[in-house]
């Protein structure tokens, strides 16, 4: 299990786009992953307010959900997104990091089901939530 976690961590940290967005994997294991994305001006979607673009949150959600799938004890290898729905509850506060927690709550031989929540410093009020279905791949 520890080996699987290590493999998933290495995989996530090798993703060029995850690096480009400055993502930091803080927790992973047992079908659960937590990834932090620091605030950066290049991610701004609304220049008037400095609020980051929804697309950057989507990229973070997608990465974190994939990491959660790969860390599940029944997942033999990599994964790809089949579908991902994101609900945006409020704007992330400018200057604050966005932290996503994803849980792979069910997995079959072919499909993994994931839920995720994004928050900023105010952890009681989610910024966004996501639900997704992912493929279960034999290898990477």
């Amino acid at each position, binding site marked *: 299990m520890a080996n699987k976690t290590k493999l998933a961590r290495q995989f996530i940290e090798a993703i*060029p786009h*995850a*690096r480009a967005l400055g993502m930091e994997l803080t927790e992973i294991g047992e079908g659960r992953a937590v990834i932090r994305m620091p605030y950066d001006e*290049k991610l701004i*979607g609304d220049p008037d307010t400095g609020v980051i*673009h929804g*697309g*950057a949150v989507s990229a973070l959600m997608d*990465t974190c959900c994939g990491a959660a799938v790969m860390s599940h004890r029944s997942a033999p290898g990599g994964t790809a997104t089949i579908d991902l729905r994101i609900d945006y509850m409020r704007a992330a506060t400018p200057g604050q990091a966005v932290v996503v927690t994803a849980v792979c709550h069910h997995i079959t031989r072919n499909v993994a089901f994931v839920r995720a929540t994004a928050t900023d410093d105010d952890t009681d009020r989610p910024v966004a939530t996501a639900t997704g279905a992912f493929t279960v791949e034999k290898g990477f």
Partner: protein
Amino acid sequence: MTRKRPEPMQVVKQRRDAALNALVHGVPYIRFLGIEFDRRGDELTAVLNYSEDLIGNPFLPAIHGGVTAAFLEVTAIITLAWTNLFPLIESGEIDAEEMAEGKLPRLPRTIDFTVDYLRSGLPRDAYARARVSRSGRRYASVHVEAWQDHHAKHFAQATGHFLMPPPIVSNGD
């Protein structure tokens, strides 16, 4: 039978392109992803210029699912905003030059966005077009499709709902 003499083509093109460029280049995240918009009349095609930073799976390699989602979302938002702004830019209610100077109208805000991944995104340029299914006073529904080599073979599609910004008040002249 009299009708207004049509404006010279360059005047029309310059106004439309200035407004569109201001809208697109005003958003840092769109620049970060390397997305540009190709305009033919009022129709827009988004172009995602490929770079290695967009890769999500280095073993395949394939474009990151998050990049695909972001590309579709940017296409939906800009197309929706453009669809609503176009008549105002044409009538002069919105001044394209003022837009170019940084006086930008507010963009629609995403309520929800659902992406279907149909096949993996190849490491090359991608294109997308959005269709505004419904645009009301407060809410809008937009469908968007993305492709690479073959227009008929979409690699992703999405539907999203958006909260519209308050209407731009006409200054009455």
